[in-house]
């Protein structure tokens, strides 16, 4: 099984040179730590920044410079700042190459639910609905099974949706899976030591297993 850090590390391998990438809160944020050397990537923060740099050193934080998670950050040489309308404009116009975000549930046709649990306090969707509706390439970083041991990869989402038919790829503690255009979770890789049977058992939606399924590699 993979740790959160390893999920992030595996997702980082999907990032190609020259990509503009938007990272959601949680595991996706960790992806930034694993971008391979020699790969030039620009991180977009939807509150209005291209070229998000690392956290500042203590004492160098700037209250005017935060990311979409409201954390203090830094800029990089070549960064640019813009307003919220332009930020979501470039997202809608699909100028951002890759969006990585977390999910509570994903369905086998690519629907995602990640913003609301009925009966619980709702904090809001923030920019998630804009991102999933607009991005041409979305990878979900999530746990395969919830704390109650139930699968989060479902035939159909049970929670209120964030977006429909938008997710392309999922990386969990157990596996890497693509969403097939015709529906279904296509198993691509399994985490080291995790059997296909266990993945099958942990996937409530339709799992498609074809041929040899290699173990995920992080190198």
């Amino acid at each position, binding site marked *: 099984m993979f740790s959160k850090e390893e999920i992030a590390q595996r997702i980082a391998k999907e990032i190609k040179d020259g990509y503009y990438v938007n990272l959601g809160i949680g595991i996706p944020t960790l992806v930034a730590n694993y971008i391979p050397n020699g790969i030039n990537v620009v991180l977009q923060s*939807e509150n209005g920044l291209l070229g998000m740099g690392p956290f500042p050193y203590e004492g160098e934080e700037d209250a*005017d410079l935060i990311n979409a998670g409201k954390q203090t950050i830094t800029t990089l040489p070549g960064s640019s700042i813009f307003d919220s309308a332009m930020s979501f404009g470039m997202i809608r116009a699909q100028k951002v190459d890759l969006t990585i975000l977390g999910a509570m549930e994903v369905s086998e046709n690519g629907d995602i639910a990640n913003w609301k649990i009925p009966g619980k306090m709702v904090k809001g969707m923030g920019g998630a609905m804009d991102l999933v509706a607009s991005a041409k390439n979305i990878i979900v970083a999530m746990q395969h099974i919830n704390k109650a041991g139930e699968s989060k990869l479902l035939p159909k989402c049970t929670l209120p949706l964030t977006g429909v038919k938008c997710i392309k790829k999922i990386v969990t503690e157990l596996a890497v899976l693509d969403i097939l255009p015709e529906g279904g979770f296509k198993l691509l890789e399994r985490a080291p030591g995790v059997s296909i049977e266990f993945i099958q058992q942990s996937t409530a939606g339709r799992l498609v297993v074809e041929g040899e399924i290699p173990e995920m590699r992080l190198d």
Partner: protein
Amino acid sequence: MINKVVSGAEEAIKDISDGACVMLGGFGLCGIPENCINALVAKQVKNLTCISNNAGVDDFGIGLMLKQRQVKKMISSYVGENAEFERQLLSGELEVELIPQGTLATRCLAAGYGMPAIFTPAGVGTEVAEGKEVRNFDGKDYLMEYAFDADFAIVKAWKGDTAGNLIFRSTSRNFNPVMAMAGKITIAEVEELVEAGELDPDQIHTPGIYVHRIFQGKNYEKRIEQLTVRK
């Protein structure tokens, strides 16, 4: 040049009265109009509809207005970082309309650019789409969303001049320029107010035509919500 300077927050918000619809710039606590919020709290104006990406925290920002129950309705994309908000919401005292962040920004832009409605894919197929017109362009569905119609917009800029021109600093820009364009009356508080002519015309983010009142704020606290540092 037309002079937009007023004496301070109190004068700037003097005609914001009970029941008004007010937009407030900022993302989290970053770039919020601290002086005007404090003046609205002091004025105790009630039954406001507030359009703002977030709702502040318990003891700062819009949270201060919530504590006094001055807000009837919040239109935001992300809220709930304060306990009083949650209490009022769950008890039904506060009405909350949650809308996608990009939709929020673009409905401001639409108002500022005289476009009555815009199309966005955000929310298609979700509860956000309920009751809204869905339209397909080139095989993709979009929701039609209307321009905001706010009585006042209150924004915070870094520098401003007497003609109302504004320059924002770093990510405290966020919603401020689009809201500045969207208010029927736009109030700007700035950290530094200079004479017309001192700002480079090429570097102005919000032209003065969109700003009706401007003043130099004071005692900016600029609270940090998530101080995160590296070793």
